[in-house]
């Protein structure tokens, strides 16, 4: 808890003295961190490997974009509503996807994301097709407060969403519900035979994961002022899975670090070479082979050794 407070305080103080561009990068890193953490709920705690988590992100982004473009709902509420909507849609998705297990489950999540991608390309009035939604505003309010529209205000909104999301996810995995999830992860047949309806638990965790992932996407839309089909593309699903694995699965904090690390390396490498993804691939292979417990695991190993 003390650790959490220290990190929150550090994040809250960072905007003072940071140049605008660093603020932009930091805000994006926090959004990606929330997105990666949301996937960890599925991957790390219930061993539900999703290849289509971009669906959650894109759903959140398009929903929030449309709310902000077409209504006067204040920015923070629009973001929350879009996250909720993504979670509700996920119940249906999970109901279908959890018919299968293992690789088939992963393939179904991918199929669903690609379906949304194809729909987004055709549903011009809602998604703007290949042009995307441009000029998404940061609507003022509530109570006439315009602070969230500013650079630092938006940063604090993102920070609040990340910390809130983290507390929610942590409470979830520490509860009896989380214990059942871990049971599913270790041995689903055994958990089932203990009398738990494991499918319901899986649907619930997918919904929670999509809700937080949708929240991240919902923040991205007003952050960039723009949303397009890239946000639903499998490339993003792959990247977020890499962030989770590099950061450390089943830790919640690890994937956030993984996202920050990913963006940092991308930022640094891409100034030198256009094929930065090639080099990141090498880093990824290195993690899988030599540090399967990820960045957080490495850090823990290091602190134990000293």
């Amino acid at each position: 808890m003390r650790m959490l407070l220290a990190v929150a305080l550090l994040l809250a103080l960072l905007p003072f003295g940071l140049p605008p561009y660093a603020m932009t990068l930091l805000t994006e890193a926090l959004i990606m961190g929330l997105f990666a953490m949301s996937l960890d709920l599925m991957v790390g705690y219930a061993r539900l490997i999703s290849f289509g988590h971009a669906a959650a992100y894109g759903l959140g982004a398009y929903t929030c974009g449309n709310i902000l473009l077409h209504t006067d709902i204040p920015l923070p509420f629009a973001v929350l509503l879009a996250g909720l909507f993504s979670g509700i849609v996920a119940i249906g998705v999970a109901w279908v996807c959890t018919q299968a297990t293992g690789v088939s489950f992963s393939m179904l999540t991918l199929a669903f994301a690609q379906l949304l991608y194809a729909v987004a390309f055709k549903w011009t009035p809602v998604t703007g097709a290949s042009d995307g939604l441009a000029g998404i505003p940061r609507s003022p309010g509530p109570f006439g407060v315009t602070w969230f529209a500013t650079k630092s205000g938006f940063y604090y909104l993102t920070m609040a969403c990340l910390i809130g999301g983290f507390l929610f996810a942590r409470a979830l995995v520490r509860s009896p519900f989380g214990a059942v999830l871990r049971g599913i992860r270790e041995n689903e047949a055994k958990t089932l035979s203990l009398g738990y309806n494991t499918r319901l638990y899986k649907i619930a965790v997918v919904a929670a994961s999509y809700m937080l992932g949708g929240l991240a996407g919902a923040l991205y839309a007003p952050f960039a002022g723009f949303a397009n089909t890239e946000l639903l593309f499998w490339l993003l699903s792959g990247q977020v899975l890499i962030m989770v694995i590099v950061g450390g699965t089943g830790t919640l904090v690890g994937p956030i670090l993984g996202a920050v690390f990913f963006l940092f390396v991308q930022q640094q490498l891409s100034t030198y070479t256009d094929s930065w993804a090639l080099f990141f691939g090498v880093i990824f292979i290195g993690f899988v082979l030599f540090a399967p417990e990820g960045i957080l695991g490495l850090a823990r190993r290091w602190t134990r050794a000293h």
Partner: protein
Amino acid sequence: MTGLNRRTLLSAAAAAPVVLRHARGETPIKIGMPLALTGPSGEIGQQMRHGAEFWLKEVNAAGGLLGRQVALQIEDTTGDPATCVRKAQEVVERDGCKLLFGMVLSSEALAVVPKLAEWNAIFMSSDNGDGRLTGSSFVPNFFRANISGPMETRVISLWLREGQMKKFFALGMDYAWGHNSIGVFKDEVTKAGKTFLGDVYSPIGTKDFSTYITKIRQSGADGCFLVLQGDDNAAFLSQAHEYRLSDRVQLITSIVDLNSIHAVGDAAIGLAGSTRYVATIDNPANKAFVADWQKQFNALPDVFEGEQYQACKMLQAGIEAAKSIDAEKLRPALEVATIDSIKGKIAMRACDHQAVQGGYIVKVKKQDGAKYPVPEIIATFPGDKVTPACRQMTFES
């Protein structure tokens, strides 16, 4: 010469008077240029880059702007609007650019322009065609030096009014520019009392056009209006040639460019259409430009190289009049800027920041001695007939 070498050379050229500059304590004027350098629209991005670099060399050799050297910060967007927004944000916030060029696709420009006010940056377009940029999506910090999609379509329809063709079909790229231009075309031909049979749209990056070609043939049209560019345009033209489509249907394209002609060779013969710029325009400024260009590159400047050069000159005129690159001072100066451009006298319009300019109809013909067929100007229309009313995309008469 590769792009990297040219860039190294340019930075060496820019570094030459470095002692002088430091003595006066001045930093170069940096212009950000997010461009699609790779992907289906990469060829256009490369042309825009050439055009801007040509101007840069010229202006720096003459002592720069306001006594400061000028530098370009070029970034690759791959033609994706989301990446474009990110790269534009980078050049503005990280590199401190207050002036922007570039953005190949209209969808990229539409994504970026809402951010210009927050960045306090001016964006001078050299290529974006979508009419909404000077219409419903207008923002005060956006200026369009180039001819827009509705304008090039208007040029074609003015030309078609005089012709014999009665029935038309249209094929466009499935994004902002394609839909916008075909919308205007439909409106124009219907007003001229001709028949518009239908339209189809191909996704960006389409390689196989056979189904589209079949649809065009089956439509029974006399003429087919094409809104394609880059690799898509070249792919379509060569396949249309294989299917002998032009035997039955007159192909009318919204942009005739050398790159597509070079890509498809004789398949381009007979193609008619509007062009935003062509090296054979007859005026002193263009003759000087083409001569310099040929001396440097041993080639004729292509459409987007010429258009980019014109946009650079427009921005230069604004900066020299305002004696500042600050958006608040530059904007009013640009709003009344007039230049003797390579396309003749071009005037920026204050009400929607569209540069008023004429349009050209060219037909691709075989020329003796030339390696490739060449576009020849067959009709010219003046700016007041071609430019729509302020913030409009359609035309009254």
